[in-house]
Structures are given as C-alpha cells and as structure tokens.
C-alpha cells in the first residue's frame, strides 16, 4: 500500500508496522479504512519513552476481516506539548481509547467529541502511565493533623 503519509514499513515477528506522519494521520486512517478495508480498530494506545525526545509513541492496531489482516500504525509525539489528532471521525471505536490516552498519558487529543478522563476520577492530578509518575506512595495524608 502506498500513501504519502506512510514514512516507513517494518516487518517484524510476522507483524506489519507502518510509521506514519502525525500531521496526516486522519487522512491515512481514512485511506486504510476505505481503500485497504481495515474496517475495525482494535485498540489505540501510547508508549512513554521518557526521557527520550520525542517522548510519546501513539500506536493503532487495525484489523481487516475480509481479507484477514492486522496492521499496526504508529508515530511519535513530542513531550513538550503532546497533541494528536483524533480519528473518531474514521472509527467511532477510537473514542474511549483516545480518552484513555488523555487520562493515562496526558496527550491532548484534538477534535475529540468528548475528551475527559475515563478511568481516573475527574479531579485526579497527573497521568499515571507516564514513566515519571510514581508507582507507589501517598500524596495525601489521612492523619488528624
């Protein structure tokens, strides 16, 4: 498959990965859905490569039923002001996964219909799956001081 937004194609462990151009991701997704028949979006997630820069990697897993194929699309986002474009206009399934990315990694999703925290309480501070977020520890004291 060829599309201007595909920068590189990698084959590893029997899986195909496309490295995409983040500015044209919606175009690319639309192309993959309409022309390459990837009608299902399995999941969207992110990986934090802190302290490397660009820090975040956003990963989409696509699935085509007929013919049966799976595909991974990913691209990097800088950690200074992380922003990605929403693909909910292509697959509605992206909605909750993108909310999860916002909740867990603090990556802002532009043009998302309903961007708010999904797993953590709405008044939670910080984004737990970032590598600089501690695994253990108490932020608040519950003593009677």
């Amino acid at each position, binding site marked *: 498959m060829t599309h201007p937004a595909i920068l590189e194609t990698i084959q*590893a*462990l029997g899986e195909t990965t496309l490295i995409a151009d983040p500015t044209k991701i919606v175009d690319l997704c639309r192309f993959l859905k309409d022309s390459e028949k990837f009608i299902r979006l399995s*999941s969207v997630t992110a990986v934090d490569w802190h302290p490397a820069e660009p820090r975040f990697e956003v990963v989409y897993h696509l699935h085509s*039923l007929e013919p*049966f194929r799976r595909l991974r699309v990913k691209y990097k986002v800088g950690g200074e002001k992380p922003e990605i474009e929403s693909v909910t206009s292509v697959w*509605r399934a992206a909605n909750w996964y993108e909310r999860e990315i916002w909740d867990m990694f603090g990556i802002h999703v532009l043009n998302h219909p309903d961007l708010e925290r999904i*797993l953590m*309480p*709405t008044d939670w501070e910080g984004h737990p799956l970032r590598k600089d977020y501690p695994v253990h520890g108490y932020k608040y004291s519950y003593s009677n001081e």
Partner: protein
Amino acid sequence: MNRPIPYSDPVSTIEAIQETPATPSAPRHMTLNMGPQHPSTHGVLRIVLQLEGETIISAKPDIGFLHTGIEKQMETRTYAQAVTLTDRVDYLANLSNNLCYCLTVEKLLQLEIPERAQWLRVMMTEFTRLNSHLVWLGTHALDIGAMSMFFYCFREREDILRILEMFSGQRMMTSYIRVGGVALEAPRGWQQVVGKFIRGFPSKVDQYEDLLNANPIWTRRTQGVGFISVEDMLDLGITGPMLRGAGVNWDARKNEPYSSYEKFDFKVPVETSNDVWSRYRVRMQEMRESAKIITQALEGMPEGPFQADAPHVVLPQREKMKTQMEALIYHFKIVTEGYRVPAGEAYQCIEAPRGEIGYYIVSDGTSKPYRCHMRTPSFGNLQGLPTLLERTLIADSIAALGSMDFVLGDTDR
C-alpha cells in the same frame, strides 16, 4: 477535604439536567442515574440515562470504579511475576488472559511450545469459556426473572472450578498458563474427572434449553430486544458472541488459530437475528462446541513435556533443583532478576469468552515489560452501550445490558 473524591463527577449529571429544554412545547427529559451499585450491571458501572417517559433517549456510561492500575503495576514486575496480574483483569476468563499474555511474551522470545502444553492450554481455556458462559447465563436469566437458572448454572460451574483447582491448586486466580508452557503437569486421574464431567455436560445444556427455549417470558423478553446494526458493531469495536449473533462469522480460533486450535474440529455458531435471543443462542451453542473441544483434548492428549525446553525462561523442576547445580542457578536467576526478553513489540489476540483479548507488549530488552497494553473485550464492547440502549425501553435495557456480558474488572483494569 483535600483528597480525590472516589466517586467521579456529579458535574456530568448536573450538565445533563441543564441541557434538557424545559419549554412547554418540548417534553422535559428526565435524568436517571443507574448504578454504580445496581444488580443488573454486574459490577460497579454507572450509566446516566436520559429518559422520555420510559424510553431511553441517551445513555452515558461512566466507568473506572474498578481501576486498579494493572498496566502500571506490570511495568514494575518481571515477566514471570506479571502472569499473576493478568488473572485479576477478568475474573471469569482468567486463563484466557494468562494465555494471551504468555503467547505475546513467547512471540517476543520466539519460543516453541511443546504440543502437550498447547493442548492443555486449549482444554483449560475452553473450561474457562464454559465457566464464563455459565455465569453469564445464570446471572442474565436471573436479571430477566428466571431465578432457578442461576442455581443450575452454578451447579456446573462448581464442577468446573473443582477441575481448575485440581489442575492448578486454585479455583479462580489460577495462573496456570505460564510463559513456556503450563505451571504443572496434569494431576493423576484427571482423565476420569474431566471425562465424567464432559460426558454429562451436554445433557445439562439440554436441561437449560428445556427451561428457557419454550418459556414465553424468556422469549418475549429476549426476542427483538437489544438490536444494534452490524456496521455500528464493527465501527464501535464490538467483538465476540455479540458480533457472531449478528451474522458476522469471525472467531480468532478459526481465523487466526493460536495454540494449535487448527487441530480441533469445532464449528463457530453464528445467528442472524441480532438481538438478545441470538446472543443467547450463540453462547449456548458455543458451550456445546467447547464441550466437543474438551472431549477431543481428553481423547487425543499428546504425550511429552508440558513445558518448553528453555531453561533460561522456564523454572526448573524441584527434583532437578535438588540434584543439579545448573537447575539451582537458573532457578535463582529467574526468581531474582527474571529473564531478559529481546527488545521489540508484539501484539497477539485470542478469542476470549467475551470477544477479542489483545495484548500489546513493548520490551526494551530488560526483564520487565516496558509497556503492556491490554485490549480487553469488555472495554471494547461497552463502548457500544449508548448505541445499544438508544430508543429502548428502560425495562428492556436490563436484558440488553446483560446480553453484552461485560465484566467491569475487565473494563477498568
């Protein structure tokens, strides 16, 4: 009090009320807060419903009450320790989660699994499917009003849990499937116990169908209820029996076989009516097919080792540790620092009782997973809830909700 509020936002409810017009010409919508503690949600799920009379105009699910940060915790555990966390994701399909995690790690390690281990894995995951479907049937029928089903289903479930305990030592959080094979050799006499159960099981399914199929209350509460179009399902990421109940013949066990499923003879049940009834039919037939798979595994179980020949990954046997120095060293190394997994990434998906489980593991070459994302079926399915509940009656919403068969631990992770 300056601390996080355990209940998430009262704000969305207030906003929802303000949104509705209160003009005399347009009827005022009522906002109903269903859950987070509601018997039919099978866990802590909150749904904010907008009602017009008894019709649901819109539904907004609010999840996250059972979030336990499993993905974060996995990053601090070695690959061997993380298996125990995958059990806790979905308490009804723990072996499916074990299997998916192990397959992904094995893909990264490029490990060959002996045939006997693969067959044991298939047999145990099919027991998990039976277990999960039985709990679904019992509780779903209880929601709709057929109380006795619950007792019948849990009777068989108890037998399955005894079998799981016999194999692994645990009833629910088994951690039986490990990277490189399974944890223990099948116990002595397992053929008799499994054989006795599986010979009797099809007649039990007949019994359930006798109770439900011709029951006028059951049929009227399930047929034609909970419709959602196939396009919506695919677009929203709904998988599993819901998708097969809408005529889409897609099952990872057939379409992308893993763990030697291609050697088993079974059918993928598909129904076309796309309602609660068709999902019920799919699951009942799946139970019969699972019983067939278990029978085949019982009859054709290959001999051989139950763990891969990979001493740097698989824990050595106790006897070897007492007689061989190398085994002792490997044991010490695996337990203290874990084994290193080559850098890379892998995604593996399997067919769980509820749909597609997919594990995406990123390794940076150390002994701990750098990132492990779980694509859980309940999370994917629950996303379709607003579409499923739109324009249904509030009484039907209970049946529609139940037919999704979600587990909130699986949703929130």
